[in-house]
């Protein structure tokens, strides 16, 4: 189908078909909004069918989901708090995706970023708080960056498939965290739940004034905007998009593909590591098993739903943060398992991926194919 579209493409200027140029401009860009939104709606309809099949009311479910995710100021703040790590975890997928890499091991970078940050925070206790918080951020980003940067380096220099290696690295990271938290870094006072020593209160990251949402949300949003600028407005981003399209072509153009891949994957891992640091400094207060809460995996879904566009990640992360936040309420009110949310996420994921096949198929989005009815 795509062939017919490209071969029929006329070398036309905007407005060449005699329609106002603005309408053609909108039509060309509408595809990127209409198809994902339609896929989201189809996914939710399929999920209602599923819920109806197991004998529950889909209307009640979506109502509960709305109430648990966005219905009150309290639930909105809860959703935003969950969105904060998702923003960074999604960037960990979206940045390598621009290079054509599918990295799905962000969970490992989150976990190690959290452990690294907690270790530095405890080691530096006594120092001024802004220095310690800065050092924790750097440590978290370094730990995550090395972890995912290694995946990128293995990909480029050894041709090791990045999808599998990143997920294996995530399992190894979780084992490493357990080993560290149970062994050398363990706080003897943590009996039931092995943790590192708790951070002093002055080293914790507080809430954004006027809300019960920690500063991680702001960090995540800023990171998304900066990544958008990096990809769309800088020469590195341009080079990455070329390399993502065709590695050979990029090499022929003299682009340093290796450093580009390692740099992008390291930055991606660094951002996920920052998410781990924020979880430790703003939510948990120490590194422990709760770091592996699945944000890395939900982040994959966020990135794919946003089609790897950093700006689109912001609303999608808030949406999925809300769905995540409503899980508890759905469980209590409707007597459904907590995995209900996972089923919805899986369905949305499949429908979104399926919708990729629709791009370029609709005449409405391609003014070059329009004909004036006369």
């Amino acid at each position, binding site marked *: 189908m795509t062939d017919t579209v490209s071969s029929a493409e006329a070398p036309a200027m905007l407005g060449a078909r005699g329609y106002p140029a603005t309408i053609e401009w909108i039509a060309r860009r509408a595809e990127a909004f209409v198809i994902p939104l339609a896929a989201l709606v189809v996914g939710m309809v399929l999920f209602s069918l599923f819920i109806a099949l197991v004998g529950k009311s889909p209307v009640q479910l979506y109502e509960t989901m709305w109430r648990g995710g966005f219905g009150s100021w309290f639930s909105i703040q809860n959703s935003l708090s969950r969105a904060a790590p998702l923003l960074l975890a999604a960037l960990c997928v979206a940045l390598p995706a621009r290079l054509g890499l599918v990295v799905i091991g962000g969970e490992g970078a989150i976990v190690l970023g959290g452990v690294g940050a907690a270790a530095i925070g405890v080691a530096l206790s006594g120092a001024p708080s802004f220095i310690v918080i800065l050092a924790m951020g750097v440590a978290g980003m370094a730990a995550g960056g090395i972890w995912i940067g290694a995946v990128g380096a293995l990909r480029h220099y050894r041709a090791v498939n990045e999808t599998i290696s990143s997920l*294996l690295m995530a*399992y190894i990271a979780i084992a490493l965290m357990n080993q560290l938290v149970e062994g050398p870094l363990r706080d003897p006072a943590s009996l039931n739940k092995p943790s590192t020593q708790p951070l002093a209160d002055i080293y914790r990251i507080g809430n954004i004034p006027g809300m019960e949402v920690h500063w991680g949300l702001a960090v995540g949003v800023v990171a998304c905007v900066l990544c958008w600028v990096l990809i769309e407005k800088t020469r590195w981003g341009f080079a990455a998009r070329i390399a993502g399209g065709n590695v050979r072509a990029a090499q022929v153009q003299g682009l340093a593909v290796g450093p580009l891949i390692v740099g992008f994957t390291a930055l991606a891992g660094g951002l996920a590591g920052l998410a781990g640091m924020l979880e430790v400094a703003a939510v948990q207060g120490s590194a422990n098993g709760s770091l592996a809460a699945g944000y890395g995996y939900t982040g*994959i879904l966020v990135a794919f739903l946003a089609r790897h566009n950093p700006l689109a990640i912001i609303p999608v992360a808030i949406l999925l943060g809300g769905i995540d936040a409503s899980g508890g309420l759905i469980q209590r009110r409707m007597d459904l398992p907590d995995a*209900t949310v996972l089923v919805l996420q*899986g369905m949305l994921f499949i429908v979104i991926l399926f919708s990729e096949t629709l791009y370029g198929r609709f005449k409405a989005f391609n003014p070059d194919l329009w004909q004036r009815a006369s």
Partner: protein
Amino acid sequence: MDATEIGLWGVPLAILGGAIRVSTPFIFVSLGEAITERSGRINLGLEGTLVFGAMTAYAVAVMTNSPWLGLLAASAAGLCFGLFHGWICKFPKVNDIAIGIALMLFGSGLAFFFGKPFIKPKAPNLPAIPFGAWSDIPQVQAALDVNVLFLIGAALSLVLWWAFRNTRAGLIVRVVGDSSDAARAMGLNPNTVRLVATGVGGALAGIGGAYLSLYYPGSWTERISSGQGLMAVALVIFARWNPLGCFAAALLFGGAGALGPALQSVGVTQGYYLFYAAPYILTLIIMVATSSPTRSLAGAPGELSITK
């Protein structure tokens, strides 16, 4: 007789027994993935299929009191997952790796959703054959208690190895995997062949899941799989898409997985979590050692996206 009397001999013995016990799901998943990849597609969703198969097998075994019906149900469920993957990937621009990731999440989510009521009840196990009955040392008996599925898996890898070389079906799968164009020129429909190959692969992964919940560890929990489905995909690359290689690699991985518990049984508790990570580290090392940026892998199907 107890552990102290056979002393350190308990470690290799426990690793051997562990290799036989732990490797069985690897054998089935990797054979399934080998069939799928030989046809030119990669299904990363087998991890989700494995978990869903484990849940289905356990639930059906609890309800019917027959582990064999559970096994059948698990393979049917796996077949459905595989066919779905095979069907959806035939559409242009739908990425098989990404769909696999989605099915990984979806399969696990669905398994947790329906599996909630089955965490408590006890299901009947699949039978094992006591090859160690001649010995009166309990460790030897434990190590040589071999489940029937292990033997079926061993036989299957031999049959598949033979079938890929000597049967018409094996040739068709290989042609489609090496070149869609050549297959079309022969009048074959690559999408249909891949649909069947992915379906069969899913069914085998479902059987691997049934082994997890019905024999070892032998119960249904949400943590039943720790990435076996995914490691099996890496293992197929290591085994160069050869069913006999898959069997050998599965044994190796099973042994690596049994290292931690085996050392723990003789009192080595230091670094328990790191030994637990041994299979993942081994997989990674093998992938690094066997990949190369300058040459394509020997035996790799030409249409496979993962080796490009």
